[in-house]
């Protein structure tokens, strides 16, 4: 009697998101994709928010109760699966997504971003490309 053990290839994914949460479906599709990848036991190392995608990191986003709260969904991924949520600082500043440090630096009277989202540079996108088996872009 033979026995075959089929070992599913586990991969390291990173995802890049270019669309704001309410411009089109891309950010939601990205979330569902990440959720599915994690359920299949792949690792999702990093989500890099770039261009309009940085608006996903705005903690002041307040959708109605009967809609998905994508911000909370991203936060949950970070806490339950250690997915890194990296926001490109150049794109973010331009679009009013500032953490407390940047708000102080630019003398703004409020901030719109906080942990687990982290402001960083394009080098993080490069690291994601280098470290990951698959890098997939959502949005435009």
């Amino acid at each position, binding site marked *: 009697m033979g026995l075959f053990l089929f070992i599913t290839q586990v991969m390291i994914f990173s995802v*890049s998101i*270019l669309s704001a949460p309410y411009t089109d479906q891309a950010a939601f599709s990205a979330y569902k994709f990440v959720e599915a990848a994690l359920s299949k036991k792949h690792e999702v190392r990093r989500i890099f928010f*770039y*261009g309009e995608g940085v608006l996903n990191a705005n903690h002041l986003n307040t959708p109605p109760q009967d809609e998905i709260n994508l911000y909370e969904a991203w936060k949950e991924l970070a806490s339950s699966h250690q997915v890194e949520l990296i926001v490109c600082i*150049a*794109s973010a500043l*331009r679009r009013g997504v500032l953490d407390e440090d940047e708000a102080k630096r630019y003398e703004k009277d409020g901030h719109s971003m906080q942990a687990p989202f982290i402001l960083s*540079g*394009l*080098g993080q*996108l*490069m690291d994601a*490309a*280098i470290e*990951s088996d*698959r*890098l997939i*872009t959502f949005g*435009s």
Partner: protein
Amino acid sequence: MQKKLLFISHKTPYGSFAAKETLDAALASAAFGQDISLLFKGDGVYQLLPQQNSSLLKRKSIGAILGALELYEVNKVFICEQSLLSRGLENIKPLIKVHVLNNLSLQVLFSEQDHILSF
């Protein structure tokens, strides 16, 4: 570790900030020592039109950023032939030196990459 990365720029130069941000990402990657190719496709081919005057829009010129590609040793710069033809741009003199690729060559380019970053 060096990977082969293809950046594809699909957007017009000034309709949004996508074109600038795509070039910024490509240049940053080159600065990090990656093996970069850059492809202009779809509306992205409009970025190569000469005689742009972005000061009218109070914006940085895409031409200036394109000029930086050579400085960062990004030499593998391509443009999609079909995108040029369908926009009637086959006879323009592009802002910088680009290699025109037909669909078959595009397939080959895609298959050579470790990652494709589509903007």
